[in-house]
């Protein structure tokens, strides 16, 4: 009988921590990992809501989590490919040195 709210709070905290990591870290890979953490928190929320209906079970939330994980995997692959090519060019993966969008 865990109150739904606890799951939501947990999810919120994890999301915030992930957000902090995205904004604060300089290493591109760590930033990416924090993004994964954020997506995880979202997954928890989805499943928590899916379990919170009284008129029977609705598995839409669980299914959606499947898709989220799929997309996360795809995104990780492509993102890491980009990071690799970027790192090859610059010899570092410092987020602060990616200034190519500057005028």
């Amino acid at each position: 009988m865990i109150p739904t709210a606890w799951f939501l709070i947990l999810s919120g905290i994890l999301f915030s921590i992930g957000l902090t990591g995205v904004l604060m870290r300089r290493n591109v890979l760590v930033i990416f990992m924090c993004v994964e953490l954020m997506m995880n928190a979202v997954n928890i929320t989805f499943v928590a809501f899916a379990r919170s209906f009284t008129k029977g079970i609705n598995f839409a939330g669980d299914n959606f989590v499947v898709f989220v994980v799929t997309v996360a995997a795809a995104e990780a692959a492509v993102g890491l490919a980009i990071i690799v090519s970027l790192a090859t060019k610059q010899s570092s993966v410092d987020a602060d040195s990616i200034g190519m969008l500057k005028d």
Partner: protein
Amino acid sequence: MTAKDVESILWLVPIIPLVASFINAFISLAFLASRKKSDLTAGQLFARGLTGVIGITAIISSLTISIILLVFLQGSNEHLVSVKEIFIWIPSGDDFQIKFGLMLDPLTSVMTVVVTTISLMVHIFSTGYMKNEDGFHRFYTYLPFFTFSMLLLVMCNNFLWLYVGWELVGLSSYLLIGFWFAKKYDWGRMLPSAANVKAFVVNRIGDFGFGLGVMWLFVIMLPHGEGIPLFDRLNYENVFKVFEEGLVDGKVVFLVSILLFMGAMGKSAQMPLHVWLPDAMAGPTPVSALIHAATMVTAGVYLVGRINPIIVRSEEAIAAVAVIGILTAFFGSTVGTTQKDIKAVMAYSTVSQLGYMFFALGVYGWIAAFFHLMTHAFFKGLLFLGCGAVIHSNEDTIKEMFEEIHHNAEEWAKKKYPNDPEKAAEYAFELFEAAENAIEYGVDPKSDDRLLREGLDPQDMDYMGNYFKQMPVVAISMTFGAAALAGVPLTAGFWSKDEILGTAALQGQWWIYLIGLFSALLTAFYSFRMIFSVFWSDSYRLPKALTRLAHAGMQKKAKELGIQYFNPIEIIEFVGGNADKNRKQVKVHVHKPGWNMQAPLVFLAFMSIAAGYVGLPNVIFGNGVNQIEKFLEPTFEPALKVMESNDITKQPDFTGTLILLLVSAVVSLTGVGIAYVMYHKNRETLPERAMRLSGPLYYISRNKWYFDEVYNLIFIQGGMAFFRFLWRGIDVFIIDGIVNGVGYVTRFISQGLRKVQTGFVTNYALYIALGLVVVVAIFYLTVGVKF
């Protein structure tokens, strides 16, 4: 001769001078253009002379017709001849039509005769005065045009055409004052190119009031003129009928009178709009004689006389006229006593005498005012023409002396440097030029001696004297003229001035009478100051002054050039009497004017005496002796009627009039006597002592009561400060500031916003996160999340 005949020739009087002006204009443009006199061929010289002849002929014709009309009018019972429609100026439908019509009533008749007479004298005189002018033909184009304008002004029968004539006269004055527009230096006086603008602008200020007055008359006439076309309602007779029937409110009458009088103030140089008249002396002297003594400035007097049915119904307006008149009279006479320039004395005298005419109108002395106008035209015209003769001869003398200086300087240089002709010529030229410059511009601006400081002005009375010997005709004519101005007994001026003062005393205005009497004293003083110092003094000052000035200039130049042991006497010395060839003395010939300059003077001198006899007082010499009163009465009948009904008419009595005559005589002779003592006997000493004794009064008078300076301060400096504020404060600061400010603010904001785009992805992530927080907050607060 019937009224019908008169009507048919009436229109000729103004038109003939206009036609002459156009013919002269054609001749000037076709044959003469802007060539110098020395470049003209014989044929062109003939054309040039022809313009003068055409002008004179035209004026003679006008004068003849005017005299015919005058005689007719005097002999007939009708007092008004009018031609209502000669042509239609703006034929634009039935109602909006401006018709041009002329009329002839006693006042008009007198004015036309005076105008054409003086104009004729000036035309004849100018053939001599302007003989060597490059712009001779231009002069004879403008002069008849002015005559036409003035005749239009006095002969028209409609207020609208009066305004047209008013403006045309102003235009002619502008053209004629600025005749020597190319002059660059005039011994510290205002240049003609500025003086004519000043005249026009100050006139314009008066014309503003005049225009408003005419417009107001139009508005007044609108409800009263059924059946009469719009602009015919501005005919004199229609307007006067409305006023005579008492259909106009008293306050309106006052205001309309004041507005119309403003025009008179501007045109006739009354205080405070008098400032243009002395500067108008920058024009040629015949112009001053015609316009600024006899004709244009009397247009204001004519106006007030013409609107007598209106103005007589407002006591305050008439009082205002009187006050301004007497103030002006007093002002002019005080300033005239200390002026050094001969034309300035005459200018302020004109201002003063115009003031007399106005204050005569102000004490209900209608006929006295116009009588004085007539006599003043004669003697002031004479005085101005005589001044012209004197100035002309001075200028010619000085020019001749220049040539002598040049000649002698060359001889001296050849003797001093026989081996070096080039250096000799150069030195001679330099010395001559130095002398010339000294005479024109003065030698040393810091010198104590006024002559060395300012140069020799041909119009300066300090350097004139003893001209009786050289030009006796001029001298005697001028004396007669001055006597008339001073009011010496038995001259025309005496009778007319006394009539004015008598009217003032009759009406009980004792303050006005006393101030007028004092001004008469000053008038007598300064007019004979001029006569004595210029014509009848012992010292012939011009040669010595010229010599001194030329020597000072040459000495200074010699020091610059390094010529050692230079004695200017070796070059030139001018003397008035016998010359000594061995001492390089040159006798100065004062140029006597030719017959074409002397004849008008003689005629006008005669009229200065004779013209007074048409206005002898009835009281003393018997009823009906006063011709001019009898003649002019019909014009002023409306006013006289009103005066009777208001009980203002007073009858003069024999003893009173006699006493006043004697007082006037005594006062004028006193003035003459003081001038005699100061300027004939003790010219070297007394004037200076008087100047020192009078202290600040002298300077106030000399500087024309500082009117120009005050006007400059208030209107020009004040105006410039205001306009500068408008420019800097409003245009530059506010308007440009707003426009520039918009750009500046945009640039500022955009430069600030530009910094958002850093190019660093992590910053963009931060912005995304920030946006997320903000959007969630807004969403929750506005829409709300309910689950």
